């Protein structure tokens, strides 16, 4: 038997407290893993939209509440270029056509690299508003500021030794407001 206060189901028939009744705090955590490596002309632009670059992974997520905050974060994503045609690799996250964050970590001068062949290790860390309580795909896309240059993501093409299951991970926490 569920436990109701007024019309609110506080505890369901399985005896689980309905997170709706929790005042504030984290009410959902999801973790995603990809072992994808990408190479080639992956596209991109200086102000990348949801159709620029290449999808690395999509994260299907269903918020519990339309009023929550969602916290998305990742570990580092390595990006390097094959020829000197761009200077900025990026990772960006989108819901529908809305860009949540773009990270590029342009922390090192081109002269740090042989032939100005750029490398970067961006990651994501952003809090944004829930879109409602339907399922949507958060699209994680990588690219460069010049869409014609070959780049490598989570890959060193010059050497052996990379683990075939080397991971990139993403976490989404839903924070009830």
């Amino acid at each position, binding site marked *: *038997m*569920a*436990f109701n206060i007024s019309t609110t189901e506080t*505890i*369901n*028939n*399985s*005896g*689980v*407290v*309905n*997170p709706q009744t929790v005042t504030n*705090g*984290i*009410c*959902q*955590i999801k*973790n995603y*893993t990809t072992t994808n490596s990408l190479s080639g002309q992956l596209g991109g632009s200086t102000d990348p939209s949801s159709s620029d670059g290449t999808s690395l992974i999509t994260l299907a997520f269903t918020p519990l509440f339309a009023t929550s905050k969602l916290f998305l*974060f*990742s*570990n*580092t*994503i*390595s*990006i*390097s*270029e*094959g020829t000197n045609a761009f200077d900025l690799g990026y990772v960006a996250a989108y819901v529908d056509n809305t860009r949540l964050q773009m990270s590029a970590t342009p922390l090192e001068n081109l002269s*740090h*690299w*042989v*032939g100005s*062949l*750029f*490398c970067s*290790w961006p*990651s994501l860390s952003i809090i944004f508003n829930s879109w409602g309580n339907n399922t949507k795909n958060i699209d994680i896309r990588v690219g460069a500021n010049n869409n014609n240059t070959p780049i*490598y993501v*989570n*890959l*060193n*093409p*010059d*050497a*052996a*030794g*990379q*683990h075939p*299951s*080397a*991971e*990139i*991970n*993403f*976490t989404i*926490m*839903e924070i009830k407001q």
Partner: protein
Amino acid sequence: MAFKVGNTEVFNDQGNLQTAGLFDGYILQCVSFTTQTNLSGTLGGASDPGSSDGTSYFSFQFTPLLSDSDLLLYSSNICVWENSDSNDVFYLAAYFDTTRISIVNAPVRDNNARSSLTRTYLALNKAFSSWGTSQKTIDIRIGSGNGTGSNMVVNTYLDTTYTPQHETPEISFTMIEYRKT
């Protein structure tokens, strides 16, 4: 008086919410561990590293409250590099017992770096199933995916030209245990 739904005790006599009443994502505990460890020298490693490959960078003990929860392990970024061209791919991995929780490489082109001096910035961000309610040690290990792991440097620099780096460069690891049904 305890509160039950059917035979399931949702709240105990003291009014504490019991396991059965916890929804997915309910955070049970959150613990952070910090180290100022830096390493240099021959750290070993393998392309498919086991729990004895590479070098232990840091370890900490953790005791899950539940055997059916999920554990999220994440860290700050760890800078790993080499001071002579001995390796091409570095890794950061976490283990309990002989089980590998996660491995990351975050490699870039070896040929892009001057003198092929590889470097990378590694971090963990992985959820995995609780092993039970016993205390275990989580071992954070670093090594090279090829070569012998010689001339590797972790979380420090070796240049003595300038004033030593910040006295307390910290690397933090956080464990979050949360309900997973």
